[in-house]
C-alpha cells in the first residue's frame, strides 16, 4: 500500500489547515523531516539515543496470570519501561534532533497528562534546548507531579486557563505561541495530530513500537502475528506506531477510546488544530469538551490516519468507561505486578470485556501496547481504589 501519509493526506483526512503565518513553518518542518529520514547519520543518532537513553528495545512481556483468567494469550509491549515512563519519548527525541538540525533553540509543546511535556523537557535538557510546555489548568491540578518533573528538568510550564482547561486548549495556546516564535522555536507536537507533516512524522517516530513488537511476536508466537493488536487512542500516537508494524498483516487492529473522548467512534468531520478529521462537536459546529479519567485521552478529536483506517475498515475503534478502566488497572496490577497508566488501562479494559463477552475466541493471541506507567495516576487512583 502506497503510504498516503507522505503526501500529507489520509483519504479525506489530514491536510494543512493553519493560518497563513504558519504555512512556511510547517513546510520547513516537512522539508527537514524528509531530508533527515533519508540521512543515515540522523537515523543512527536517533537509534543511539533510543538505545542508550530511552532503553530500547522495550520488552514484550507475557501476562500469564491474566491470560489464564481470560482464556486468551496476552502479550504486553512495554512502553511503560522507557525512560520517562511512556512512549512519548520516542517521538520527542526524533523531533528534538530535527529541531537542532533546523537550528532551533527552543521546543514548544502541549501536554495533557504531562507525559509528553516530561518527554519534551527531557529531550530539551538532553540536547541543550529550552522548552516551553503548555498545559491546561485542570491538568496542572490533576498531574501536579508531572508539572514538577518538567520544572525540575528546566522546562517552563505555562498554565492555560481558557476553555475546558485541558489538552485541547493547551494545543490551541501552543499554536498561538508558535505563530509568534517560528524563527527560534520548533513546535514539538505530541501525537499523530496537527497539520501536515506532523501526523505522518509522529507516526514514523512511533513506528519503532510496532516494528519491534512485530519482530518480538514472530519469536514469541507460533502464528508469528497476533490475532489482535490493541492500543489506547486519544490523539492516537501509540496506537498509530503500534498499528504501523501490523497494518500489512492479518491482525485485527483495535483502538480503544475513552467513552467521553471518543473522536474516532463518535466524532464528525471537522477541522481543528490544523487538520481535518473526526471531532466531537455540537450541532452548530462548536467543538465539545472531552471528559475522561485519563488526562492524556481528553482530546475531542483523533489523528487523521485513525479516521482513515476506520473508514477503510482496517482498524476498529471502541470505547470503554472510566469504571472499566480503573478496574482494569487494578486487575493488571494484581495479576501481573504492573501498574499501567490510566490511558493504557483503556486497552486492557477492552480486552477484558471482549474476552469475558466471548468476543475474543478462546486461545486468541492479543498484543496490547502498554503505552505508559501508572505512577502519575496514583493521586487519582487513591481516591477510587
Amino acid at each position: 500500500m502506497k503510504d498516503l501519509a507522505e503526501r500529507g493526506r489520509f483519504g479525506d483526512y489530514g491536510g494543512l489547515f493553519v493560518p497563513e503565518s504558519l504555512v512556511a513553518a510547517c513546510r520547513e518542518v516537512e522539508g527537514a523531516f524528509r531530508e533527515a529520514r533519508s540521512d543515515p547519520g540522523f537515523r543512527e543518532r536517533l537509534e543511539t539515543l533510543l538505545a542508550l537513553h530511552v532503553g530500547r528495545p522495550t520488552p514484550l512481556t507475557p501476562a500469564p496470570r491474566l491470560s489464564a483468567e481470560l482464556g486468551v494469550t496476552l502479550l504486553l509491549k512495554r512502553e511503560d519501561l522507557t525512560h520517562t515512563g511512556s512512549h512519548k519519548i520516542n517521538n520527542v527525541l526524533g523531533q528534538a534532533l530535527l529541531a537542532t538540525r533546523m537550528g532551533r533553540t527552543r521546543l514548544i509543546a502541549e501536554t495533557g497528562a504531562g507525559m509528553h511535556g516530561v518527554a519534551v523537557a527531557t529531550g530539551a535538557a538532553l540536547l541543550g534546548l529550552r522548552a516551553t510546555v503548555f498545559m491546561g489548568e485542570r491538568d496542572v491540578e490533576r498531574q501536579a507531579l508531572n508539572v514538577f518533573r518538567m520544572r525540575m528538568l528546566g522546562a517552563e510550564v505555562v498554565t492555560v486557563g481558557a476553555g475546558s482547561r485541558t489538552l485541547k486548549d493547551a494545543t490551541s495556546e501552543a499554536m498561538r505561541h508558535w505563530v509568534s516564535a517560528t524563527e527560534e522555536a520548533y513546535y514539538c507536537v505530541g501525537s499523530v495530530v496537527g497539520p501536515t507533516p506532523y501526523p505522518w512524522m509522529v507516526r514514523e517516530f512511533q513506528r519503532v513500537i510496532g516494528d519491534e513488537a512485530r519482530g518480538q511476536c514472530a519469536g514469541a508466537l507460533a502464528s508469528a502475528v497476533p490475532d489482535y493488536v490493541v492500543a489506547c487512542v486519544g490523539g492516537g500516537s501509540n496506537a498509530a506506531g503500534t498499528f504501523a508494524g501490523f497494518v500489512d498483516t492479518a491482525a485485527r487492529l483495535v483502538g480503544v477510546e475513552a467513552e467521553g473522548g471518543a473522536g474516532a467512534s463518535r466524532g464528525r468531520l471537522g477541522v481543528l488544530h490544523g487538520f481535518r478529521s473526526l471531532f466531537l462537536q455540537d450541532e452548530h459546529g462548536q467543538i465539545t469538551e472531552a471528559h475522561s479519567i485519563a488526562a492524556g485521552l481528553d482530546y475531542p478529536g483523533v489523528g487523521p490516519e485513525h479516521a482513515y483506517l476506520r473508514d477503510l475498515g482496517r482498524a476498529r475503534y471502541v470505547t470503554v468507561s472510566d469504571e472499566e478502566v480503573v478496574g482494569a488497572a487494578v486487575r493488571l496490577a494484581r495479576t501481573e505486578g504492573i501498574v499501567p497508566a490510566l490511558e493504557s488501562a483503556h486497552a486492557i479494559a477492552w480486552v477484558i470485556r471482549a474476552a469475558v463477552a466471548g468476543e475474543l475466541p478462546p486461545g486468541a493471541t492479543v498484543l496490547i501496547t502498554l503505552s505508559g506507567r501508572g505512577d502519575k495516576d496514583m493521586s487519582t487512583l487513591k481516591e477510587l481504589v
Partner: protein
Amino acid sequence: MSLERRLRDRGRKLLMPYVTGGITDDWTGYLRSFAAAGADAIELGLPFSDPTLDGATIQEASDAALARGATAHGILAEIDGLGLDVPLVASTYYNLVLRDGTSAFCAALRQAGIAGLIVPDLPLEEAGELAEAAAATGIDLVLLASPSTPSPRLYEIARRSRGFVYAVSRMGTTGERAALAESAGALAERIKQVGDLPVLLGFGISTPEQAVEAARRADGVVVGAAIMRRILDGAGPDDVGTYVTALRRALDQESDERR
C-alpha cells in the same frame, strides 16, 4: 456589485471595524453605529469555540457570545433585513463552514446579505473547495497574507483572493499592541506589487495613529480587538461609534493632508 468594486468606489482609505456576532443582546446596534461612523465594510465574526489565531480579547468575546447561545445561523438571521448600506464580510474558522458544507454555508451567507468571507485557518492549499462554492454563490472569499509568505506565494494569494487581500501585519495572533509591527508596511507594499486588489492591514491596529501609519502603505485597516475590548468592558453602540468616528477622521485627515 462586487465587494472589490464597492470598496474602490469609496475613494478613500478604507476602514473595516470588526464585531463578534451575538456578543450582546443588542449587538446589531454595533453594526449600525459602525455604518454611521463611516465604516467602509464591517467584519462580522461568527464565534468558534477554538479560535486558534485569536488573542485573549477575541477569545473572550467568542466565549461570551457562545455562552449567550450565539450560533452562526442565529447571527445570520439577525442581520437579515437590517438594510445596512455597508458591505458585511463574515469571518469564522473552517469547522463552522464544514458543519453546513461549503455550498450550504455560502448560500446561507448570501441569503443574509453577506458580501465576503474570511477563514483564517484555510490557507491557499486547502481553499479550493470553498473558493469554488463561494464563487458559485457570489460570495467573495478573502485570502490572508502574512509577513512570512514568500513572494511567489504572495502572487498566488493576490491572484486568487476576492474583494481585497487581508494583510496580517505581524507574526502573531489578533490583539492590541503598543506599536504597529515593522513588518506591516513592507507586507502591504509587497502585496501591492504583485496584484491589483485593495490591501487591508489588520492585527494590532488599535489607535487612530496606528491606523494612519498603516494606511500610508495599505489601502485601509481592520480594527478588531480594540473594539471588542471596549465592548467587553461595557461600551455600547454609541460609545464604540465615537471610537470608530475617531479612526475615520484620522484616516480622512491624513488623506486630505497628502492631497
